[in-house]
């Protein structure tokens, strides 16, 4: 196999990985801190994609308004997250997982149908923003600029996120809320507001990644369920609630998928599921997680 070919596979894997990271990090954060498994997280990603498309249509169908549309999509999904957390999730904290599962699954169905109602079932697509529409030569391959941008944004968010968690006052409060919610409340912190903030941030990231994926993938009904399954696999591999675990879990997932296609063509997803099965047997709490 030529080196340039391998390089292309690695880059393809990394692109998948960084999208997954943006989604799975929010999923993992919400679970790690609030102990709620949010199945509807993939629906937020889907809404981000549709809203970005809508924004582009309103602003400039040729694609010039892409960045503004992306911001609009991510912020709108964040606001939606705030409403959903304030109105519904409140009563789920500390309840049995079954209730959380049922509620968030209902949300998946409702949001999925709402998207079909609003945008139909046709494939929609968004063109690459002009500033990133070219490509550059690396190792004898042509890498689209947009792909490189996505590969850069993942680590940037990972580093920024972990610095905020470890070095800032907000980060310390968030970590304390994860360890002992009631004690932090008794010390005077409005833990409910911290939860809302975290949920909004996670929703914002999901909406952002949904918007950013549109130049690469077409927008179709069902993308919500497809992505949530993948995000769960990432989180299982990396370890629930571990920020860097999610990052490396995404990278492993992306690369295994990218190279799995070469080894088992037609069974590419098999390799990822096999990896997850092995990890669940050997290290059920994930590569970077801690035993519960």
């Amino acid at each position: 196999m030529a080196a340039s070919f391998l390089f292309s596979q690695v880059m393809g894997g990394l692109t998948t990985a960084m999208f997954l990271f943006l989604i799975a990090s929010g999923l993992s954060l919400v679970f790690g801190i609030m102990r709620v498994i949010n199945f509807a997280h993939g629906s937020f990603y889907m809404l981000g994609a549709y809203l970005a498309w809508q924004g582009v249509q309103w602003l400039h169908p040729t694609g010039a308004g892409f960045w503004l549309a992306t911001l609009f999509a991510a912020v709108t999904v964040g606001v939606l997250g705030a409403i959903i957390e304030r109105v519904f999730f409140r009563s789920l904290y500390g309840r049995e997982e079954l209730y959380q599962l049922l509620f968030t699954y209902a949300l998946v169905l409702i949001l999925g149908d709402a998207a079909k109602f609003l945008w139909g079932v046709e494939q929609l697509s968004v063109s690459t923003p002009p500033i990133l529409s070219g490509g550059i030569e690396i190792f004898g391959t042509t890498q689209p600029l947009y792909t490189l941008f996505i590969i850069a944004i993942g680590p940037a968010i990972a580093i920024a996120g972990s610095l905020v968690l470890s070095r800032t006052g907000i980060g310390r409060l968030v970590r304390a809320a994860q360890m002992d919610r009631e004690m932090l409340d008794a010390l005077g912190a409005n833990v409910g507001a911290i939860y809302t903030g975290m949920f909004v941030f996670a929703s914002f990231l999901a909406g952002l990644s949904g918007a950013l994926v549109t130049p690469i993938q077409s927008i179709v009904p069902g993308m919500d369920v497809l992505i949530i399954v993948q995000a769960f696999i990432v989180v299982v591999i990396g370890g629930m609630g571990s920020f860097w675990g999610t990052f490396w879990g995404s990278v492993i997932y992306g690369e295994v998928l990218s190279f799995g296609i070469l080894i088992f063509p037609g069974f590419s997803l098999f390799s990822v599921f096999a990896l997850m099965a092995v990890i669940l047997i050997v290290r059920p709490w994930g590569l970077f997680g801690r035993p519960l």
Partner: protein
Amino acid sequence: MTALLAIENIHAAYGLSRVLFGISLEVETGECVCLLGRNGVGKTTTMRSVMGLLRPTSGRVLWKGADIAGWSPHRVARAGIGFVPEDRRIFAELSVWENLDIAARAARRRGRWDIDAVYELFPALRELRNRQGGFLSGGEQQMLTIARTLMGNPELLLLDEPSEGLAPLVVETLLEKTRELKAQGVTILLAEQGVDFSLALADRVYVLEKGSIRHSGPAAELRNDSALRDRLLAL
């Protein structure tokens, strides 16, 4: 003059099991009041009811005359009541300094207690400031949990069983520190099983039994009258 804290006839329960049967008590500014009684008589429940961690089924909790029963814990904390729980509840994965820092951020009450002031009261904590809370000894954790609550500059400190599980020498140090706090004008409501610890500090005591108040009076009375002490607190 209204008392700083007045509990009026509160009843409380955990689910179906009733724990408090009409507790009434008062704490005046500058006082150290002790709730004495065995394990399970309702001392912790009384404190949790004041703090908003448990909603009393009936009765009033008056803070400077306003009823705060049913308030959320952070609202109670910001109103000026600081809680030092029995099980200490240090944030185990945060360092000593981080534990103190978030407490100041959480309560948002500035006053005489800041990081330097609590390090001055507990010099050991300054040495341990970078150590994770989970790696402290029991005595060190107890100091940290008191220091952490002080960072919120409470006007009333609820101290739940501070001497529990500590070696006698550590208890001695703790007693001294608590006396120092009292001398500096911190109002304290203390819950204790240990008679020596509480009588050494308290101005007044309430003796609890099965969720009600069996006796109340000046601490000196119990200190001087061993027959009364034995009758009330025979363990």
